[in-house]
């Protein structure tokens, strides 16, 4: 990995460096704005760390080969943006179904379709949760700075290995193309998690039989365990068993694996919430405008705080429920879309507080001033709460 120290680094570069620090040694990708710098940095750095980079023919192939490499025992990653992310949805589901650890970076740009290739948006948030068919449990990190693109990419690899699933790093064009100070810690200070290995013999091994944490140990290909891996509904042996009872055992476990370990995975940050009666909820690049809006609104006498999910899924639902019960009257959700996370917030606040939305369609970020104006309007009862 890089020499430890302080660097002036672009977000996408920091993401690639975070991946290398986390042990990523296989990367497959397809050029797409605004994620291409991740591919470029990886190609430059991989010879040195003996990694394998493949520029594939499309994003379908990129994610498929990442899954293959993960089963070969590599820590593997791909990076893309909206259109490519849409193409990856089917194999994202294969990764979730077959419990294949890997990392998918999505640098969000304006959509739908080709949209605004060079400009920011946060329109893929619900796609990370519900974009692949079927019921799934997912983990999604939302970095707000180049430093976090470094740190959270490492976290994403560790979570992927620990809980055996494809984990998403949901960046956006502003965070990925921003150049800022990044501290690269010494290798000894970076925690690295590796997938659990089976301790039983190949004869006795049940490749999809979970431990207490609901995660099965993983035998890689070539280790003599003759593992069968299928996207079909499968039993603990990994054999296809296309019936209701196997489905009822497998799919709830895949969801509970995340739900019941949510406290371990969940990551969020609070700012000036202690005495607040209003809260802004923002993530990704918008968090940067929101934190300034909090300070500006405070100067005007409004008791505003900020809650920022670093993991969008699992979502900090208990904390928001709690705040709505005891302390916060009004929640303002600021996101660069027409309302996605606001639905999550609203279901957690409906019992005790009002939820408002500050939407933006993409192309630019909220200004702190417009968020302060919203706070003022909410305070004066001048705007309606967000309703479906």
């Amino acid at each position, binding site marked *: 990995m890089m020499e430890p120290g302080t660097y002036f680094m672009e977000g996408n570069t920091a993401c690639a460096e975070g991946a290398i620090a986390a042990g990523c040694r296989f990367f497959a990708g397809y050029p797409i704005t605004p994620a291409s710098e991740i591919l470029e940095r990886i190609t430059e750095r991989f010879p*040195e760390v003996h990694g394998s980079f493949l520029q594939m023919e499309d994003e379908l192939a990129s994610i498929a080969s990442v899954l293959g490499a993960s089963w070969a025992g590599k820590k593997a990653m791909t990076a893309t943006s909206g259109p490519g992310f849409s193409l990856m949805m089917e194999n994202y589901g294969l990764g979730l179904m077959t419990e294949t650890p890997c990392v998918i970076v999505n640098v969000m740009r304006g959509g739908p379709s080709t949209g605004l290739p060079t400009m920011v948006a946060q329109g893929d948030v619900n796609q990370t949760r519900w974009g692949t068919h079927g019921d799934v449990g997912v983990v999604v990190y939302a970095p707000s700075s180049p430093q976090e693109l470094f740190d959270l990419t490492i976290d994403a690899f560790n979570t992927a290995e620990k809980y055996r699933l494809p984990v998403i790093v949901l960046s956006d064009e502003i965070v990925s193309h921003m150049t800022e100070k990044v501290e690269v810690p010494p290798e000894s200070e970076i925690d690295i998690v590796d997938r659990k290995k089976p301790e039983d013999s190949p004869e006795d091994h049940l490749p999809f039989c979970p431990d207490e944490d609901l995660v099965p140990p993983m035998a890689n290909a*070539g280790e003599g365990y003759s593992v069968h891996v299928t996207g079909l509904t499968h039993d603990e042996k990994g054999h296809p068993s296309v019936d209701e009872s196997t489905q009822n055992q497998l799919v709830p476990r895949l969801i509970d694996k995340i739900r019941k370990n949510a406290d371990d995975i969940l990551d969020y940050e609070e700012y000036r919430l202690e005495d607040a009666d209003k809260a802004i909820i923002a993530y990704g690049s918008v968090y940067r405008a929101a934190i300034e809006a909090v300070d500006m609104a405070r100067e005007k006498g409004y008791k505003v705080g900020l809650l920022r999910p670093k993991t969008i899924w699992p979502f900090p639902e208990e904390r928001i429920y709690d705040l709505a019960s005891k302390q916060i009257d009004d929640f303002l959700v600021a996101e660069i879309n027409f309302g996605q996370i606001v639905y999550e917030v609203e279901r957690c606040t409906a019992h005790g507080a009002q939820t408002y939305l500050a939407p933006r369609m993409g192309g630019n970020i909220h200004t702190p001033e417009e968020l302060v104006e919203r706070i003022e309007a909410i305070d004066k009862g001048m705007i309606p709460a967000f309703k479906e």
Partner: protein
Amino acid sequence: MSIRKSRDWFSPDYMDEKSKKKSAYGMHPLDEYLRKDRIPHIWCPGCGLGIILNSYLRALKNSHISPEETAVISGIGCSGRAAGYVDVDSFHVTHGRAIPFATGLKIGNRDLVTTVFSGDGDLFAIGGNHFIHAARRNVDFNVICINNFNYGMTGGQAGPTTPKDAETSTTPMGGFEQPFNLPGVAAGAGAVYVARWTAYHVEQLIDSFEEALNKKGFCFIEVLSPCPTGYGRKVGLKTGKETMKHYKENSEIKNGADPSEVALDPEDPDTNIIVGKFVDREAPTYQDERGEVFEKARKKMEVE
């Protein structure tokens, strides 16, 4: 052997007992390569897949390649189920994506003898783009395409290899699309080994699989296979046996034939099945080429 005894022979108890003594001896010479608890398979009577899978496993055994060093990847469809029956690291992935999955697996672990075992629709319709790019890169693995001229599992629809005038579920008035000449596609895209056989040509098939298993680079073998259920009964080949007879009587072995000239006659699928080994050449693999470039880069970094 009485019928009763024969049934006992296949009883679950007997199977369990045998599978405990793994690979010591068994009921079938290829037991060590089969997931015995997954047998019987789902394939229809008369289907060629059993013969082709058997030939592949024989080739593995003849080449002294153990199950532990083997990986089989399949896409979706009847052929896609092959991965579920072989007792090796086996992957049954999404429709059309067996080749990129295999690419990642092989590059992730170059010691695995890697084979993609899938059907014509999976490899050449939904997965066609991956096929040509893997051949172009010359990644070191084998692709076995079981060509039964239709989508068997979903009910006999036309696909990219269906002869032009064949009647299928989606061409009830007869087809009109030009089918692929698969050896021509493979050779044109850069495969270093290209052959075509039918399920009738068992000996040649085993030899061909062995050659591919022992060859470095992207090897492609097309195997024509009877599908009486989905395809044959609509085109006058009502049973597997009739189809095999058809292959026997109409195949012509032409080793070294120009792959661009071995198209199955779309006007008359009943004649001129050219089979044989068409391409067998040497070319540096993806892994070799990349290793060289990376090595140079590392040396340059050391100097700097």
